[in-house]
């Protein structure tokens, strides 16, 4: 019946109209709709909920979460950005810096370098603890001196030829194990994630000699600790044709959407439009600029189907998968999402 269809749409779809968006907020709370039992039911939630990983590689992860509400989906997103710990350079002890990059700028850049180390194996540093122990600190040394290349051609102007060690990369960082770290971490496992990040440039006579201490921290404290380059989600698009679209109009319709969303098929000699894969659409709303066709389509989003896209700063280690929902004190809510890192 039309009434229940409208109610269903109100409950389950966010509708994109020409000039506004309708049904944005969650309304399925107990008492709002007669005839619906909206009280929380863990079993019903578990039955409807599913997670599908669409794509996973070293640098990004795309997965769907279906059957969950916006507030919880958003909480996961916020946690990925701000509350998943990583290791990052916090203190830089500068012994010698005669480069053109100021100490503090250099220290800032070093702090932003992603470090390949599993933060679960480390503790947070205690407040007020200046020295740091092997359980909460990683130490790196960076020592580079630029010299003139004696074998360069006389009239060369290429810095790569004229100078030696004039570009300081992350591969020049060496790990100095503290305490028993050498036993715990095999050679080559504690390093910057990328070895080709340019830290500074030097000219002959300039030197950088410093010691770095990495600690465990979270994104809330400083963005350098955030494990993800970005974590975002979008709702699954839901495109319905309200009336059949045929012939030239079908071709026009398919051009109004992203490629692959609407396809035109030949049925009994006529071209007919069909919604093939709404997931691909980016909702440019081009359809609303077409006077004839805008009445033929309903643009909506499925309210409880979240497509997450997460890009990592750390390749080779799925930090994204670690999400911790914490409440204020210890015993309240501690749920840790811990899938295995990719091989």
């Amino acid at each position: 019946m039309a009434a229940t269809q409208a109610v269903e749409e109100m409950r389950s779809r966010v509708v994109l109209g020409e000039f506004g968006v309708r049904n944005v907020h969650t309304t399925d709370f107990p008492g709002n709709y007669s005839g619906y039992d909206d009280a929380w039911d863990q079993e019903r939630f578990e039955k409807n909920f599913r997670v599908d990983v669409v794509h996973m590689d070293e640098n990004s992860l795309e997965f769907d979460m279906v059957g969950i509400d916006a507030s919880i989906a958003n909480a996961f997103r916020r946690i990925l950005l701000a509350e998943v710990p990583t290791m990052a350079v916090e203190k830089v002890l500068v012994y010698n810096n005669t480069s053109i990059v100021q100490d503090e700028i250099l220290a800032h850049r070093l702090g932003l370098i992603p470090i390949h180390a599993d933060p679960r194996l480390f503790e947070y540093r205690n407040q007020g603890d200046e020295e740091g122990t092997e359980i909460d600190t990683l130490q790196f040394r960076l020592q580079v001196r630029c010299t003139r290349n004696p074998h360069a051609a006389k009239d060369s102007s290429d810095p790569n030829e004229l100078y030696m060690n004039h570009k300081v990369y992350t591969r020049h960082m060496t790990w100095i194990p503290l305490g028993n770290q050498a036993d715990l971490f095999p050679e080559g496992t504690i390093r910057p994630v990328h070895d080709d990040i340019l830290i500074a440039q030097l000219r002959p006579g300039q030197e950088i000699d410093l010691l770095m201490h990495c600690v465990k921290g979270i994104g809330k404290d400083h963005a350098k600790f955030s494990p993800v380059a970005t974590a975002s989600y979008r709702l699954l698009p839901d495109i319905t044709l309200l009336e059949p679209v045929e012939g030239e109009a079908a071709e026009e319709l398919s051009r109004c959407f992203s490629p692959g969303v609407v396809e035109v098929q030949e049925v009994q000699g006529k071209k007919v439009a069909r919604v093939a894969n709404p997931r691909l659409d980016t909702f440019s709303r081009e359809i609303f600029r077409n006077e004839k066709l805008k009445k033929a389509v309903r643009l909506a989003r499925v309210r409880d189907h979240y497509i997450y896209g997460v890009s990592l700063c750390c390749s080779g280690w799925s930090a994204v998968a670690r999400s911790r929902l914490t409440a204020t004190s210890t015993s309240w809510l501690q749920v840790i999402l811990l899938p295995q890192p990719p091989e």
Partner: protein
Amino acid sequence: MEEDQELERKISGLKTSMAEGERKTALEMVQAAGTDRHCVTFVLHEEDHTLGNSLRYMIMKNPEVEFCGYTTTHPSESKINLRIQTRGALPAVEPFQRGLNELMNVCQHVLDKFEASIKNYKEQKASRNESTF
């Protein structure tokens, strides 16, 4: 005015375990005197929308709750006020605790499903790589 004067502030027992010796309140309950315990404002320290919105949703799903809302007091302060009013005489702490537990269960379930899905994806990828040979 009168209400302000009569406001009782109770500091509840949950403390965060920070540096030794230092105890910080994690939760406070504020309740106007004269009302029984069915409408209470909880002040949660060191929290923001991450917990606030999700907890509010879980508490609203409880049919005994007449009103539930939260607000961040000021962007410079990291605390939230969460107010719960229940129908009848149910003490407001009860839906609060129930909401927390239910949220824990939800998260645990999401975790399990996510891990299973990742494992599944990796197995499928491995078997697809094998089948190409």
